[in-house]
């Protein structure tokens, strides 16, 4: 038996640097939105609604930034990581 082959099989799937960087894009973006909301809480009118219209309640920059981060993390990232891993496996 080829010992090197066995060790490769048993080794946990190690994230490449590329996978780590691309995985961080969504969470870092969402985190930036959360920090923004904490620094400027008055922008989150949902927390203290006072007769604001739809736009002033739901379309606020920190919320939009968080939404973009979540969109990227849940919609774009899973397939991208799978393709990255597949590409890495093919090139072995």
């Amino acid at each position, binding site marked *: 038996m080829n010992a090197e082959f066995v060790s490769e099989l048993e080794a946990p799937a190690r994230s490449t640097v*590329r996978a780590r*960087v*691309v995985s961080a*894009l*969504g969470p870092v*973006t969402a985190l930036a939105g959360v920090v923004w909301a904490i620094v400027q809480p*008055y922008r989150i009118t949902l927390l203290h609604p006072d007769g604001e219209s*739809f*736009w002033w309640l739901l*379309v*606020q*920059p920190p919320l*939009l*930034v968080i*939404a*973009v981060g979540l*969109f*990227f993390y849940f919609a*774009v990232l899973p*397939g*991208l990581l799978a*393709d*990255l891993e*597949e*590409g890495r496996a093919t090139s072995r």
Partner: protein
Amino acid sequence: MQPPAEHVHWLFATGFLVLGLCLLAEVVVGTDVWRLRAWRAYLWPGMAFALGVLMWPVMVFYTNSTIHMLAHGAWAEVMTFAGAVELARVRGKLRSSAWSLAMAAAFLVSGLAFLVHEQNAWFFMRSAFLHHLLGWTLLVASVFPLARSVRPRSSFAAAGFALTFVVIAVMLYCDRDVAPVFGHISPLAGEQHR
């Protein structure tokens, strides 16, 4: 139901942020991996095209002067054209890297439009400051799509191109109707909001 002008800026900022993240991801994983799924390949060119199309109603409904209408119209034209060119490149209808010049032209025209249609000085109020900053940023950043047309595989040019959209998004998110910038606001600007 028509959104206030600053919300339009923020919605466009959201589109640019999605664009920037997609382009950054493409730089990180490589174009070959990024384009393994068709929907992903079309995501950022489609978004760029959609942003161009959406600039047309902005031109119609948010025009408070002739110069604004001309500026918004110029953006709508160049953004739609550049988005369409990128879509055609992904589709394989256009193959020459020289077509990246369409995006460079979009950056140049957008930058000039920002600078020309902002009639006030830098520190008049925040939106004036941001218009000047956006204009110069776009003018300077047009070197990235220009570089991509000469060296299509340059990671530096691709990363600079991607980060430009992120920076533009941040600037657009900072835009507010009547607000001070670094403590400066002209008494002629009107009553400050919050």
